[in-house]
């Protein structure tokens, strides 16, 4: 039988591609292209308004100092959004990200500060390295709790992480009271992620930024270059097909929440460095911001589609909007408005590109 069946008029009609379909196909393949375009437009508009139109303080927008500040500002949302991306790729969601981050941050700071006598968790004494390691382990285990509940009892991730959001927030307050630990109280190693240096004139980089970028590279590789990564996509795409293909779906899901917990633990350390203190009241809206970064980065909430690079771009969009609008002298409410519109637009675009057909 010949493979090249003669094309009928109907088939030819069906195979005609409109420009819109071409765009749809490109976005289907590279879902991070639309956020990249949005980011580019934002940067161009803010730079133009600043340099040419001299709006507000926007003339500072394109300066190395501002640019490095914006990049440094991405570290908290950016790192947590890696964890959120991996979870959302499996068609899950993690509402406890902020709570786990704060919990593991307070574990680190308390272990590093208090001596055994007054300590609630008297294991680490004042060894900051051990404190950081234990903090990351606690984050990982907390992620494991989410994974266990989701996998073992077949509960929806939304509900489980809504519950653990409260649980870890409460645990933080019960164990560590509402006490903020200031930068001068803990050893330098705990705040090392906030250390900055100038690679070239006027441009400054923090250790936390470098660690975050390294995490992006490592996890981009893991997601696209290893079998585990493929399975994460497959499980989010079609869990039944994955199971029938011999993938242990439950194990993949559990490992995803565990890995997310590990990343959250590192994010906790980065956050201490960035803010220069460990406070239980930090970042109440961080969960939604990570989800926002992931969604406007082109990752589908329905799972199975998206790229880590998109999440990074999504994070940049949030920060650039933040800086640009406040430099322009506009009220915070405009930023919130703009983000809201972007989220809805991103989900609409996702719905559209998922309808792609040959």
């Amino acid at each position, binding site marked *: 039988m010949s*493979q090249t069946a003669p094309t009928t008029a109907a088939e030819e009609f069906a195979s005609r591609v409109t420009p819109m379909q071409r765009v749809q196909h490109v976005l289907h393949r590279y879902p991070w292209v639309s956020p990249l375009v949005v980011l580019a437009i934002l940067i161009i508009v803010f730079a133009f308004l600043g340099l040419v139109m001299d709006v507000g303080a926007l003339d500072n927008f394109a300066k190395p100092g501002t640019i490095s500040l914006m990049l440094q500002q991405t570290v908290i949302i950016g790192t947590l959004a890696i964890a959120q991306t991996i979870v959302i790729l499996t068609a899950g969601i993690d509402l406890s990200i902020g709570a786990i981050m704060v919990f593991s941050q307070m574990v680190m700071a308390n272990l590093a500060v208090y001596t055994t006598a007054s300590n609630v968790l008297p294991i680490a004494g004042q060894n900051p390295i051990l404190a950081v390691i234990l903090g990351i382990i606690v984050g990982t285990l907390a992620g494991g709790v989410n994974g266990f509940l989701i996998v073992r009892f077949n509960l929806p991730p939304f509900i489980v992480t809504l519950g653990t959001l409260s649980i870890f927030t409460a645990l933080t307050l019960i164990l560590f009271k509402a006490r903020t630990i200031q930068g001068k109280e803990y050893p330098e190693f705990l705040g090392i992620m906030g250390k900055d240096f100038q690679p070239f004139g006027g441009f400054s980089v923090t250790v936390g930024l470098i660690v975050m970028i390294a995490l992006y590279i490592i996890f981009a590789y893991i997601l696209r270059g290893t079998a*585990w990564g*493929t399975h994460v996509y*497959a499980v989010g795409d*079609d869990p039944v097909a994955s199971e029938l293909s011999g993938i242990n779906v439950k194990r993949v899901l559990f490992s995803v929440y565990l890995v997310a917990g590990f990343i959250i633990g590192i994010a906790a350390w980065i956050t201490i460095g960035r803010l220069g203190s460990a406070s239980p009241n930090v970042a109440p809206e961080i969960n939604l911001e990570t989800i926002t970064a992931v969604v406007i980065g082109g990752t589908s909430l329905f799972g199975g589609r998206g790229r880590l690079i998109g999440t990074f771009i999504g994070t940049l969009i949030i920060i650039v909007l933040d800086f640009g609008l406040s430099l322009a002298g506009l009220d915070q409410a405009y930023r919130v408005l703009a983000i809201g519109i972007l989220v809805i637009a991103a989900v609409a675009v996702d719905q559209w590109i998922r309808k792609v*057909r040959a």
Partner: protein
Amino acid sequence: MTTTTDIQPIVQGKALNKSFGRVIGLNECDFELYPGEVLAVVGDNGAGKSTLIKCLSGALVPDSGEMFINGEQVSFKTTHDARSKGVETVYQTLAVAPALDISENLYLGREVRKKGILGKLFRSLDKKHMRETSTKSLSELGVLTVQSITQPVETLSGGQRQAVAVSRAGTFGSKVVILDEPTAALGVNESARVLKLIKDLRDRGMSIILISHNMPQVFDVADRIHIQRLGRRAAVVTPEARTMNDVVAIMTGALTIPVEDQQLAPVR
């Protein structure tokens, strides 16, 4: 008609039972597939066809009964177990991940890592190798009319998707391929292509179980026809000895055939 034979079934099920709560899927069901044949499995909706092949492919564990591959007793707990014995399945609900590409789907659950430190330590996938082999096996089976092996499966037509699923089952040194209604969602041309693919697989020495509701297709490709009714085997006949009407009559219970008039032995 039945003759005694020394040929061993490649897949055999004895007195398989499987129930879902109070619903009975399989009831003391026997089954034999012989090497190199196409065995069609037909039966009414709910007769237990899918349940039967799910047991044989490890997707379900029977409540009781015995299964044998080449005479060796097996008990499959997962589809992995069945695969490791050379039994591959294309499920009724096409088990492909739509957003993954063709090559990723062919290798889903059995990815190949790079040689050396990259593969061992960094667990790096050998995408190049997987793409090349996928292209090769698809074109060997004459199904590669797709533009690119890195095309997501959801951008393929129904027939192409089915071809990918069938090819996946026919690759990787499998000996038995199980197809659950592979042409149900396809047009005439696409169905013909898949049937051709089934014959090709048989001609390459594979043994095939084909579940289908389409009598003309069954009579076209099958060597023997296993008729399933109320969770058990009602009869096994050949397309030569029986008409489509006979088969439908057996399916519905209007006709019963004594064992000596059945074709329980291999014909090939």
